[in-house]
């Protein structure tokens, strides 16, 4: 199913007419209803496959000589640029979503989940509200904005895509929930004192960009339910053709090596159901089959050995004489 937005955009012919001089009063008034131009979705039942490219890179992006000490490598200041080539197996229609997937990363750990200050994120006046953020609450006696372990451990691998030596732009806006941007992360709250401590966790934030614009952070702050999770990195807004080879230049900065976490880069299209979700279909088929089977059993029972409904011979006193 495909839902297309109506072709008429705002400010169509109607608005032009309303400004015209009123010469003919019999002229029908324009409304979308009378002109039968109400916005509609036109379901066209076309099969749509979700195409997914998954690239696991956490080992491959460590130089061969450092593979014995991956943690040392990731913590060293050396250049961590890494190149990957991805082949598009099938045509991918835009938008193509770019995800990073981490594994064995406990974003749902209680210590981690609680380590944030929602007040501070929303309201510049509340920047001192860091009690929940321990141990990442203050640095040099000043409160950290945004404080807490979640923000501090912000994912900091970056990806750049090129196709045929042409840069494929990644749109990093609109990857977070609108309500988060509008209500939870203040438009006038700016990062302060962030990653200023002795230990640097993850990514730095752009100092002069308000938190509500730092969508990577907003996405990251929505903690995942399970230790394996995907988060949206950005959107590619061009179609990719089958056979296209996409060159990824990635900065392999994030330390998943201490806890043997996998890192994956995922490019995926979506359908109306979201991403690739075979399980749901299989589950429906199985349950449907089961229901069918049960109904078959009952039909057979009914045909072979029917019990007359309301048959008094099934009453307990008729079945075992000699007691109730």
């Amino acid at each position: 199913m495909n839902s297309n937005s109506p072709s008429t955009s705002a400010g169509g012919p109607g608005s032009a007419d309303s400004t015209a001089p009123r010469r003919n009063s019999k002229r029908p008034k324009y409304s979308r209803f009378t002109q039968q131009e109400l916005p509609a979705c036109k379901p066209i039942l076309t099969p749509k496959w979700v195409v997914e490219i998954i690239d696991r890179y956490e080992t491959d992006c460590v130089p061969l000589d450092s593979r014995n000490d991956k943690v040392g490598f990731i913590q060293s200041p050396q250049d961590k640029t890494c190149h990957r080539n991805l082949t598009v197996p099938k045509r991918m229609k835009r938008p193509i979503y770019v995800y990073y997937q981490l594994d064995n990363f406990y974003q749902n750990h209680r210590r981690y989940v609680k380590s944030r200050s929602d007040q501070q994120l929303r309201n510049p006046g509340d920047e001192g509200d860091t009690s929940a953020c321990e141990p990442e609450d203050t640095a040099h006696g000043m409160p950290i904005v945004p404080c807490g372990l979640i923000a501090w451990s912000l994912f900091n691998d970056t990806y750049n895509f090129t196709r045929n030596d042409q840069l494929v732009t990644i749109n990093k806006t609109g990857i977070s929930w609108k309500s988060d941007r509008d209500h939870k992360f203040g438009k006038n709250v700016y990062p302060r004192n962030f990653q200023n401590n002795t230990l640097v966790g993850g990514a730095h934030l752009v100092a002069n960009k308000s938190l509500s614009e730092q969508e990577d952070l907003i996405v990251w702050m929505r903690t995942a339910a399970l230790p394996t999770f995907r988060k949206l990195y950005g959107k590619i807004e061009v179609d990719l053709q089958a056979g296209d080879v996409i060159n990824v230049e990635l900065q392999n900065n994030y330390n998943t090596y201490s806890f043997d976490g996998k890192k994956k880069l995922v490019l995926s299209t979506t359908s109306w159901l979201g991403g690739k979700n075979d399980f749901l279909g299989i589950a429906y088929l199985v349950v449907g089959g089961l229901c069918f089977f049960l109904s078959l059993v009952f039909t057979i029972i009914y045909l072979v050995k029917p019990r007359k409904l309301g048959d008094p011979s099934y009453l307990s006193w008729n079945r075992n004489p000699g007691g109730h």
Partner: protein
Amino acid sequence: MTRGRIRAKIRRSSLYTFSCYRPHPSEEEGPHDIQGPGYSRLVYCNQPHLHEQKPLKYCTNYISTTKYNIITFLPKAIFEQFRRVANLYFLLAAILSLTDVSPFSPVSMIAPLAFVVGLSMAKEALEDWRRFIQDMKVNLRKASVHKGNGVFGNRPWMKIRVGDVVKVEKDQFFPADLLLLSSSYEDGICYVETMNLDGETNLKVKRALEVTLPLENDATFKNFNATIRCEDPNPNLYTFIGNLEYDCMVYPLDPGQILLRDSKLRNTAYVYGIVIFTGHDSKVMQNSTKSPSKRSRIEMQMDKIIYILFSLLVFISFISSIGFIVKTKNDMPNWWYLRPPDEHNLFNPKKPEVSGFYHLITALMLYGYLIPISLYVSIEVVKVLQALFMNRDIHMYDEETGTPAEARTSNLNEELGQVDTILSDKTGTLTCNQMDFLKCSIAGSAYGTRASDVELAAAKQMAMDMDGQSKNSTPLSWQKSGIAFGQSEIELETVVTSTDKLERKPAIKGFSFEDSRLMNGNWLKEPNADVILLFFRILSICHTAIPEINEETGDLTYEAESPDESSFLVAAKEFGFEFCKRTQSTIGVRERYPSYQQPSEREYKVLNLLDFTSKRKRMSVIVRDETGQILLLCKGADSIIFDRLSKNGRMYEEATTKHLNEYGEAGLRTLALAYKKLELAEYSAWSEEFSKAKTSIGGDRDAMLERVSDMMERDLILVGATAVEDKLQKGVPQCIDKLAQAGLKIWVLTGDKMETAINIGFSCSLLRQGMKQICIAATNEATLDQDPEKSVKENILMQITNGSQMIKLEKDPHAAFALIIDGKTLTFALEDDMKHQFLNLAVDCASVICCRVSPKQKALVTRLVKEGTGKTTLAIGDGANDVGMIQEADIGVGISGCEGMQAVMASDFAIAQFRFLERLLVVHGHWCYKRIAQMICYFFYKNIAFGLTIFYFEAFAAFSGQSVYVDWYMLLFNVVLTSLPVISLGVFEQDVDSEVCLQFPALYQQGPKNLFFDWSRIIGWMVNGLYTSLIIFFLNIIIFYDQAFRSGGQTADMTAVGTAMFTCIIWAVNCQIALTMSHFTWIQHLFVWGSVTTWYVFLVFYGELSSTLDENAFKILTEVLAPAPIYWITTLLVTIVCNLPYLAHISFQRSFNPMDHHVIQEIKYYKRDIEDRHMWKRERSKARQETKIGFTARVDAKIRLLKGRLQKKYSLMSAPSVISQQT
């Protein structure tokens, strides 16, 4: 007052022959030797001010049965609340939620607990308040007390002090235990009704000491002073030892002078008494035990389940903690993003044991949702509502007294559905203690055409059976049945015709006789008119009653010792022999013959009166009539009279015996009447001997008297027999019948004597003809053994063993046994070494009647049954003597509406009439049992389904104690989102409607058999919960964990997953309850679907509000989940998968192994009962075929008998001739 004076002229002492022979104790014995512990009470009469200080300050007359008072309520009630393990656990959790350990916010732990405990306490407070109001009603009753200088004034009961002189007037209750000083009768006797104490309805005579007799009016108390030394307060009702020091003399006191609180002054205008024991010191209050708090079987089983869940909770908490320790120790150092180590030691890999310990506490709180916190409070709410419905049941409302049923404690509603044995009091419960003269047999012919209920019903039932057969069967059998029908009609002709005449003139109390042959003087035309005349004379002369003239109407009423006697007198009056006058030595009878206009009054001189005792079982008067003829008139138990008939007095014996048997079978109380004519010489010789015996002094006087009277009561001539109906309460036989069909055993425990009890057994169908009676009685002969007690015991044991043997050897399937045992025997039978044999015998008998039992024994029997059989017992009674039994039984039911509130106050349920018990048990009990059972099972199911998902999530969150759900969801889960459907299940569920419950009492057996709360069912539900939790968790996780769930590419965060999962839970458990319910009204629909809707409404609101409450759930539904089709699809999938196994299970159960209520539901649904009424009736009769007692069983037995007779007749007759007659 005038009446009092008139009556005082008769010295009762000369009337009560035996009692007056007893010499006054004070003449023979000296004062009691009162010393030592237990006899320290000192009462200064008429000087209550001396009792204001210690040590003579005794407790006040204020009584209180409340559990709390204003000050103690809070601590005590809170203590009560937290005695429940689950509540204690939640209290600890609430306290800990204030610390860092808690996985939840404090408010989400404290709010539900406060709600739950507050609600329960409010209920306690309300119940206690009601008790207080009832106490105050008693405490504020007014009594007339001497206020000094010979002036009496009213004072509330609670203000009465020890030493006060109290004046009690007729039909008032005694406010405390009193010493009788004087009464309106010259000889200082008074009549007391002790119904509230021991349930005995006959009046007891109390007699004041001679010395205090002069204190007979108010003024004499001006200067009255005396001292009483007596025993300390004790619960023994029948003993009292004390001395009265008065005028420098010491007089001994015995129980004969003591008037006990809660007994009632009868037939005496007023008495004066001194207060000896007040309030809780009084014997009644000492007798009352603290009402034990009762808990139902289901609740006790529920506790076990809660313990199981606790163990599960602790178990998974340990697993979590171990998992946590392992993870923290091994993995956490590598989780740099958590910045280990933790200074607070909550997540410190360097000290994993300490963190592990903290985590254990966290886990115990986190998985607390396994224990349904709202279970108790939901059950309480449900029970209160159930109780409300019982109270409001219009079918349990007594129009006459205007009392509805009252569930006084709502704890036991479901226990009503599991009753196995009913222990019932007799007087006031089964019977209304009123006798109706119904039939008589005079000179060998039976009079009285009114049929007893049993005869009527047998006729009806047979007619119905024949009718049913003739419709369905082949012509041949139709002919047969036609014959049978005709025959039965002949047999029962008298019965059937008499039903037409039910419309009668206004009923006369005590007289239901109907036979035109005797009424209106028609007896004169009967062949044996002279015998009939004699019969009427015996009725009007041979008694000890006193006539009383109603001054307004001039009618006579009779004050008799027993209700039978007054019914005889009423009957005699109706026949035209009105007993109108009694003097010291004469009896006046106004005789009315139809031939004369004016009644003629005859006077009979009473020469002697030989009293009725339970041992003699007869009474006689010797009178001289106006012609000088001396007559002995005697009435008594038939067996005794028949033994004493002279050779020529046996003319009517055979016919009378036959009639007596018929009467007995009909449940009537029978007495035989006889007379003999005495020659003057014969009489004077005897009289001399009698007075010699009378005046003799010594222990054998009684025996001598008996022997002498025995000599006289011989060679009697039988006149006839009377049949009196001990009027049963309305609907009692039908109710007992239904209860018997429901498989309940009924024991009658009564203070009455054995014969009375047996008669009642017959009339209320607990006994029937053809039932084998096993009577166990102690042999009274004091044998010469050294140890008489031992020999008595051996004897009883032998009787019990014989009885058991008899039952074992019985082969007839229809045979039924009845056990009748008296109080004295019971004392032995209840001893430890014998009680099990006794119980085993009793359990094998269809009905058990215990007579002459004391209140204490009633309680003991109840305990024996309760503990011995391990089944649920229900005790029902109306008087204070039943209180012990009511409290001891699993369920106590009090009959309200009659006088005396003690039984009701001690009871758990109060109903106005015995017959309401049927509805209370068979309808309400049945429903409540099923409701509560289903409700508890469902509760466990839903909490397991929910609680375990939290646990599974832990395994994916490094056991860190994080919950996937938002605190508020969890808070609302039990309290709001799933509570109303389950409450509606608990309050409104009906498997079949009340009418069907009553028609198929056999359905009740599902309760005592515990079909709905046995372990297999409970475990089944738990497994279902486990399954549901697995499905909900894993399906959601697999669907949501990594892939984008929206076309916009967003992936689900923890809140989204949690909310989706929670939505699935809400749907699954609500659909589950919808599947469980079988009775859907708009209320259930509203609650079930309303709960689901509430969840979405809540999500919308919470999503809007929560930018301040909780960041993550902000706009969770409107922005994140609702636009995602996968969210809805998943909900649908999970709900179906969760409920599929249950659906399959109930479908299979219904198709292969339907339970009774399933089939009846179907019959009702397809209206088969309307299509085929015979099937419905047939099933109804089949459902009860096994009952051995009750009305139906009796009717069946009667039908068997009649059919047997018919068979015989049929074989003699030639069939065609009968058919032609019929057509």
